[in-house]
């Protein structure tokens, strides 16, 4: 932590120093309590997890150092490999759909209309509400016989679905909940971006007679790109880790059709109490999230480059 070197010279009482040599006082006392907490609940668990991942560690039996054996077990564990696949498809859908709907909603909320603040409050309720409570109601709505969703489908002439009870539709159904829940966050971030856009490009576009779609495509979209990127990044991190909704609605089922890495990690660590293997999954899971974030950063660089080229031409 490079922070340490920065403030240490000012550690002595600075009251005695004459005004000429006045130096900014040390702010370390303000940070130390939080540092202790962070060390205890964030850093310590991390170090301990890495150490545990090198052990054969099951609750109730003695621990044995096994080196990388837990990690080597991962690629040969079909349930883990499948969970990675489920996580990736769940995440991809849960990033793209909220980005699309959230951007549309932001464009609408950027207009002026009555009761906008209140309606925005209503709109963000899904992401603030307790996930387990929401999951419970969605479970009832997904019910194949009594659920309201199949009733709504029947109104528009579509056949009833099994939703979360069918292995092929379970992930899209859960993504529906995730999208419903997290579109508001994308909307808020993009709305912040829209508020920062200068008005000049719009005025000249109006003079040139551009239509709504052209304005959106060639002015708004490029200008909010950085915000969309941030929203996508946050969405990715949260979607990969999504647990409450999946666990409360399907517990990874039917079978293991919706078992993501996080849900599998729960089973390994707290159902089978295989803590060493669970720790290895936690470490790999974290690295996967970092890798995905890195991939997004790389993609952004590529996109910036190409869009700069396109705009200049």
């Amino acid at each position, binding site marked *: *932590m*490079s*922070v340490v070197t920065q*403030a240490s010279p000012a550690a002595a009482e600075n*009251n005695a120093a004459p005004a000429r040599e006045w130096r900014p*006082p040390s*702010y370390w*006392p*303000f*940070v130390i309590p939080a540092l*202790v*907490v*962070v060390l*205890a*609940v*964030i*850093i310590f*668990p991390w170090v*301990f*997890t890495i150490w545990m991942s090198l052990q054969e560690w099951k609750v109730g039996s003695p621990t044995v150092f096994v080196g990388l054996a837990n990690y080597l077990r991962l690629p040969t564990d079909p349930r883990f490999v499948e969970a990675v696949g489920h996580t990736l498809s769940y995440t991809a859908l849960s990033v793209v759909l909220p980005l699309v709907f959230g951007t*549309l909603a932001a464009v*609408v*909320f950027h*207009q002026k209309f009555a009761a906008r603040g209140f*309606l925005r409050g*209503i*709109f*963000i*309720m899904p992401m*603030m509400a*307790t996930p*387990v*409570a929401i999951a*419970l*109601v969605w*479970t*009832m*709505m997904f019910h194949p*016989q*009594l659920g309201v969703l199949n*009733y709504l489908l029947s109104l528009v002439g579509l056949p009833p679905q099994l939703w979360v009870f069918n292995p092929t539709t379970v992930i899209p159904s859960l993504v529906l909940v995730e999208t419903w829940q997290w579109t508001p*966050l994308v909307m*808020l971030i993009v709305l*912040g971006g829209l508020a920062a856009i200068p008005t000049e490009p719009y005025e000249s576009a109006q003079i040139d007679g551009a239509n709504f779609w052209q304005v959106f495509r060639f002015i708004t979209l490029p200008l909010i790109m950085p*915000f969309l990127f*941030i*929203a996508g990044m946050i969405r990715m*991190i949260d979607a990969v880790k999504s*647990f*409450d909704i999946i*666990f409360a609605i399907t517990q990874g089922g039917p079978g293991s059709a919706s078992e993501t890495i*996080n849900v599998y990690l729960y089973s390994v*660590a*707290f159902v089978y109490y295989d*803590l060493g293997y669970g*720790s290895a999954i*936690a470490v790999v899971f*974290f690295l996967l*999230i*970092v890798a995905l974030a890195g991939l997004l950063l790389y993609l952004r660089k590529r996109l910036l480059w190409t869009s700069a080229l396109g705009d200049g031409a």
Partner: protein
Amino acid sequence: MNPRYILGRIGLWLSVFVIVSPAILFFLWMGSLSLKFEIDNASYPPVFIPEHFAWKNYADVFASNRFLTYFSNSLIVTGCATGLAMLVGVPAGYGIARMAAHKSAIVILIARITPGLSYLIPLFLLFQWLGLLGTLVPQIIIHLVVTVPIVIWIMIGYFETTPLELEEAALIDGATRWQVFRHVALPIARPGLAVAFILAVIFSWNNFVFGIVLAGRETRTLPVAVYNMISFDQLSWGPLAAAALIVTAPVLLLTVLAQRQIVAGLTAGAVKGG
């Protein structure tokens, strides 16, 4: 009024309606489920507004012998975790902002990225060794994983925007750092305190994953208690929906009342979090 303008307004209100309706309809349906007797909840096509409201669903939830225990567990865990986080996080946010120690934010970023379950494995063992399982202490401590980064993050943002001149003047006049913090910086940052507090409360209240591992029969928080109801009474939807609504009602109320602060906090935190 030209027709183009009117058409534009109609289009706008239609889009507003379409955008807000998934949220509104969901919560109305939740309310409807919670106020219906089993006959209405089990009928097809579904009944939206029942002839007789089943207020007894709510009475049953409150009357069930453990509900008040779980409610007070939730209050204690969220209250302590938020209080402690404010106590250590607000000064830390101030210190980090004044030292311009931006690299320390990496720790918060790691905390943001790390799945909650990975904290649970080591801390679960630690609490077991310390013999704390069965009390609320483990949950209070582990909720700090959620609340402390939120508070620090938001407070850094607020203290960075408050003017330095006043603080420097007070320091030269001989005030101690603590006095400057307490009497100059803190009053200016009051809106930030509200934002940090509200968000920490909401995310702690909603937390589920820590509870399912660490909570015993007596130490469940409300989300865990509701989850356990799902597994045990799959069939009585009315009381279940009523319980779900009771659990999330404080948060929903806070969201509508404090939507300005929540929006400010989420966009600031989110934008900086990237």
